[in-house]
């Protein structure tokens, strides 16, 4: 496990997402009003870029075919009954910087 400094909050507009490539992972970081949530930037349906989706409350709608993914837990909330999901990453705001916690394998690989 390792925490990585990603970017300043100003780089992610309110209720939008931005993609960032770090440690071999493509991650989508969203700004939900000062709270930043990060998920894998690959829609479980056909790989759509979630960072380009429309934010709907605590979920994001994939820009390709409108699957809806919960940003808190990565689960697919629409269509109902899909058991797949995306990975989520812990985030924190410190020293005016958004940090993301990368998963164990990455650190081991590093």
């Amino acid at each position, binding site marked *: 496990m390792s925490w990585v400094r990603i*970017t300043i909050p100003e780089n992610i*507009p309110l209720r939008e997402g931005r993609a960032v490539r770090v440690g071999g992972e493509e991650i989508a970081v969203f700004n939900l009003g000062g709270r930043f949530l990060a998920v894998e930037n690959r829609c479980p349906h*056909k790989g759509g870029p979630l960072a380009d989706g429309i934010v709907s409350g605590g979920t994001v709608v994939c820009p390709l075919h409108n699957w809806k993914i919960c940003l808190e837990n990565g689960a697919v909330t629409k269509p109902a009954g899909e058991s797949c999901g995306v990975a989520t990453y812990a985030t924190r705001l410190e020293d005016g910087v958004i940090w993301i916690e990368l998963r164990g394998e990455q650190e081991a690989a590093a």
Partner: protein
Amino acid sequence: MEELIVVGNGMAGVACVEQILKHAPKFHITIFGEETHVNYNRILLSSVLAGEKEADEIALNSLEWYQKHGITLRLGVRIVDVDPVLKTVTGDDGSVTSFDKLLLATGSTPFVPPIDGVEKEGVYTFRNLDDARALVEQAQPGRKAAVIGGGLLGLEAARGLQVRGCDVTVVHLLDTLMNMQLDATGGRYLEAKMQQLGVRVLLNRITTRVLGESRAEGLEFRGGERIEADLVVIAAGIRPNAHLGKKAGLKVNRGIVVNDYLETSHPDIFAVGECVEHRGVVYGLVAPLVEQGKVLAATITGNRGPQFQGAQPAAKLKIMGVDVFSAGQVMESDGVEVVRYEDPAMGIYQKLLCRENKLVGVVLVGDAGDSHRYVDWLRSGADLAGKRRHLLFPEPAADGGLDAAQMPDSDTVCGCMGVTKGAIISAIHEKGLNTLAQLKECTRASTGCGSCTNLCQQLLRAVAPDFEEDKKKVLCGCVPFTQENLREMVRTQRLRSVQEILEIYGNGAGCEICKPALSYMVDMVWCGDHEEDRSARFINDRVHANIQRDGTFSVVPRMRGGVTTPAELRRIADVAEKYHVRMVKVTGSQRIDLLGVKKSDLPKIWADLGMPSGQAYTKGVRMVKTCVGTEFCRFGTQDSIHAGVELERRLENLYTPHKVKMGAVGCPRNCAEATVKDIGLVGQEGSWQVVVGGAAGKHVRKADLLITVETTPEALEAAELFFQYYREHANYLERTYDFVERLGIEKVRKETVYAPEPVKQALRERLSKAKALSRDAWLEREEPVHPTQFVQIQPLEEVLV
């Protein structure tokens, strides 16, 4: 048959008659009504004032209904006397009518406090449809209005006037708004909410005088303070109309006194509604009055048995965006435990009062979404021991939606009419209901303030075998209004941003359906002068390119009329090579597509191309396809290239409800397929046919003829009129082929090319205002709306893999 006379053609009286009709026929019924309207939903007068409903939309019983049930309806007749011995009533038209049974349902009248000058012009009360109509007429933008009374009615009136553009002040006697329903803290939250909406609130003011000669010009308060006001509405409470009861010699206190069977002190005279007093209480809300009507219907038809035991009225403020709900006990007292939640930032205040583990009162300000749950607890006396922590925060409902499925059958769905979920479900099953209209007719649910409409729809959807969505479709669950209503609300309430609409009228979150639609709406209504919020736009409209299946984008530059030059083609070729464009393709619309471009390359490609955006990614003006016309073609009768290029130039960069594709052809051979375009110009010898609503995509539809004109300028003008009309009236994602079909070409013609000159002029002006504010979206390459609009974020530190 006995003669039953009903005095008062209002909500309680007619609701009671409806119940009487459910019993075995016993009476010939005559209803006297002082107002000249059929029974209508008085509750919705606030909505009429606020422009959310038309006056003719709120009728509850049609003339046919009275006829069908053999009821004699005497409108415009006021009963002035009752003789309890001869058993007759006398009307102000001189008529004398005898009765066997008499039902007094005279409601109440507005209380006008002793204020000097209330007779002046410009001073109104707010009780009936005529009042509402008068206020609608008076409430002109810019007028200074004062509403005396900060209760439910006063606040609703104030918001209505303000929505119509008046500059409104609410003057309240005490230090808490809605002091009958709220505690001091709740009142403060409400006050903040009202001020935030732009309604000024003055508390602790005793109005002593209406200033002005014969017309109102202002108010004076005790102590001498004055405010300006040329429109004054008095909403200081109501007084039961009990004088007929007195004339009949009935026992009368504040209202006509009735017992639990709704009997008065005279065996053949009954009373129901706001004019009665039951166990010392006079009710002023519909739900208990409907209850009374049910009981009285049994009593009067000889089925005496059911009793009215009093009711715990629940009040709900009907101002969109200002949730206030209150029921039962409001103030703390001994032995009462309080659970409270406050969120000043969000303006939410909630308070539950419990006694011996039972809910005895609830106050909700800012978020009243769960009110039906509390009403049920109040009524059923549910045991809440051990549940304290979950009282205000139940399990979250899935998707923030309504929780119809989880509601117990005993839960009240329609608080106004007191209809439970169980009653609705059994009505749906037993009567085979399939539409909301049928449900309303049969159960009266959702005919009150309308806030349960969504729940009713959900129940129908879940249970009705052949559920039919109402014709008026709401935009989506996040903002449950029709687009037509929303456009009107955006306009009258000067809402300029998507988030503002979602916060005031919606769930605050929005989704992929409503956000782009609302984005279009604020842009269109304000002719481009809105607060742009890119987060509410689809990705294509954030980066002005069409997203592809692999997350890359396509670039289609504008090539007006499909005409290009060797130099332009060379630049396109160079760009394609420089950026390793995966494919260069001629599109189906006479232009060139560069496919498979990375987001971060977009601004550079646009700059190198030096061509404007072709808007191939958005709901906006696509292109005008042209044929070679008189310029080259041996059959050409009109200069289709120049007409097409000019049309494209005039409309490019504008956004529309759905994409708009156009065509201009030089003769009826129609080589550029203008007759299957949204707008087409079809050249004839000496004239142009302007055609609209054509399609050759998912649907194929031949365009309708809008008008035939002689000159090219006239043809362009006709196209522009239709274009702006479509922008203003179509629903989001409604192509012209559906729009023209829905409205009918006759209506479209009448409201565009054949409209009176001022109407046409107004359409032209709004179009040119929008055009003046529009710009080539690709210029954002130089001034991005956000520093990371196109660039990929680089992490501050690298992690080696």
